[in-house]
């Protein structure tokens, strides 16, 4: 088990290194950098100014040097400076993390607490009207572009309540705090709840066919015990994996949702930074996201091992 963990950690590092190279190269092979954008906004360019600026930002160095410089800094906890705001990138990124984390956490919670029970219900009542209804509803959830769902929520909120949740870093009331996080989290969570439900359902169906379920029935266990005690515990394994993948998915969904709800989290920040070709921010954010995803996957694996004795006591 210990060796397994160490191996996983090692592979994580390899993956992260690969991501750093890919993202770095991807950002730089393309024409146009922050300097072009700054000057494009001005609608004019003085070549001398441009050269100066590129030098100031270190963009004139060979790409390998730039990479080493970045990674070197990263290892020392120095993420460089944002080209746009000229503040340390860390200072820009850090305060945005809790916002996104709260959103993502709520969304996951929402997704799991709705998706899993509904999935079980749907599986247990396979082929019934209820099952059909749940499946259609979840599929329609998956068929709605997420920005559209977000906008619909906002518009509904304005026309029904005359107000809407606009992000406020220091919410004054409880309700406001809940609204500014829970509503967008629901918009993202709806989608993943639908997904979680589907996975739970199919995983349950698979498990319900297993021999040991028949054994449980043969023991005289009640349907509830069979479904929730015997089946769900096994069925939840693939669901955990999916919830892990969901975490990655969620960040994608958050990009859109943070934009729609105007939440200054890291996901939207990434989009803005991309627009500005603000390399230090983009690189580090993408790395951060990758770290989160990789760590979540790691945790999921550990969780898996914790639940599944075959893995816990294997290796």
């Amino acid at each position, binding site marked *: 088990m210990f060796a397994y963990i160490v*191996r996983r950690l090692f592979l994580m590092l390899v993956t992260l290194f690969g991501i750093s190279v890919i993202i770095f190269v991807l950002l730089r092979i393309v024409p146009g950098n922050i300097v072009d954008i700054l000057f494009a906004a001005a609608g004019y360019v003085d070549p001398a100014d441009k050269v100066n600026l590129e030098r100031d930002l270190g963009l004139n160095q060979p790409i390998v040097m730039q990479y080493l410089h970045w990674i070197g800094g990263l290892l020392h906890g120095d993420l460089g400076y944002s080209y746009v705001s000229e503040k340390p990138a860390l200072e820009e990124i850090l305060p945005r993390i809790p916002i996104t984390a709260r959103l993502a956490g709520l969304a996951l919670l929402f997704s799991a607490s709705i998706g899993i029970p509904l999935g079980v219900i749907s599986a247990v009542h396979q082929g019934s009207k209820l099952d059909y209804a749940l499946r259609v509803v979840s599929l329609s959830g998956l068929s709605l572009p997420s920005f559209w769902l977000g906008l619909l929520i906002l518009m509904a909120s304005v026309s029904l309540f005359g107000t809407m949740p606009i992000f406020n870093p220091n919410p004054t009331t409880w309700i406001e705090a809940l609204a500014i996080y829970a509503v967008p989290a629901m918009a993202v969570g709806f989608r993943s709840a639908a997904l979680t439900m589907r996975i739970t359902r199919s995983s349950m169906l698979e498990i319900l066919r297993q021999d040991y379920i028949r054994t449980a029935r043969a023991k005289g266990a009640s349907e509830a015990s069979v479904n929730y005690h015997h089946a769900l515990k096994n069925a939840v394994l693939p669901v955990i994996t999916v919830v892990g993948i969901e975490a990655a998915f969620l960040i994608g969904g958050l990009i859109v949702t943070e934009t729609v709800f105007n939440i200054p989290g890291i996901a939207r920040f990434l989009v803005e930074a991309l627009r500005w070709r603000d390399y230090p921010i983009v690189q580090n954010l993408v790395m951060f996201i990758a770290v989160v995803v990789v760590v979540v996957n790691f945790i999921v694996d550990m969780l898996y091992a914790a639940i599944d004795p075959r893995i816990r006591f294997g290796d």
Partner: protein
Amino acid sequence: MTAPRPLLEVSDLVKHYAVRGGIMRRQVGTVHAVDGVSFALGTGETLGLVGESGCGKSTVARTVLRLVEPTSGAIRLDGEDIARLGKTALRPYRRSMQIVFQDPFASLNPRMTAGDIVGEPLSVHGLATGAKKQERVAELFQQVGLRPDQMKNFPHQFSGGQRQRICIARALSLGPRLIVCDEPVSALDVSIQAQVINLLIDLQRKQNFSYLFIAHDLAVVAHISHRVAVMYLGRIVEIADKHALFANPRHPYTQALLASVPIANPRARRLAPMIDGDVPSPINPPPGCAFHTRCRYAIDRCKTERPALKDAGAGHQVACWLNDGTGRAE
């Protein structure tokens, strides 16, 4: 009893699988799947190989055919050691040895027609194409008791016994001299089993094949084999002429094995198991004689020294320290 030079001669065959673990998936253990197996097989002869699940029967079969690479040892086919031949050098020898697997359902590519499956070896070796190939396949179908018009059917359209016939036809297509049968009837219904066994016997009679016949059903092995080898945890513990072995087993394991077979005679009830416990793990085989952990007659020597196969008379070889290495007489 057989030709002076055996068709197949396996000496000291070893196959170890690495058990990997740790950070770099380094090897942390070894499965001693086959641990020094030697035997010879003459032309037209059938050697039965029995033993409990996981004792390495299939591994022997697959290493002999070089489907997995042996760790060490020699596999001589007609005197030529094929254990270390390169891929291309091996190709002509492949034609001489074919295999029939246990599971006729998994042995056939579900997306190919029966005719294509049987004809494939012919095209791979460039032996026949087009109409000639079809003709040959039809011939093979008849040989194994299938109708040539079934060539265009897919495997799922056949019953288990028929599928095993397709497998046999495929094995026959290259005109092999040795056919390795890895539990060819274990997955079949009893009434079908007899058909396949009869087919194998008939074919051998006609074409003088050699069989390496693996099964865990002692009765089947007894029926089809000339000689029988008993394996336990990667090693052959006893090998003898069939009659000698069944009439006079000398290894306590063979004895236990025979005693465990339920006899289809209600008047001869004997529900007292000869041995307790499970087969030990091939990752950490016990030292000495691997069977000593379950053997009632084990002496101290069994726990430390590994017995080698020793002739106990008339080609009856046994690996047991009892009675000066000639095994336990019953």
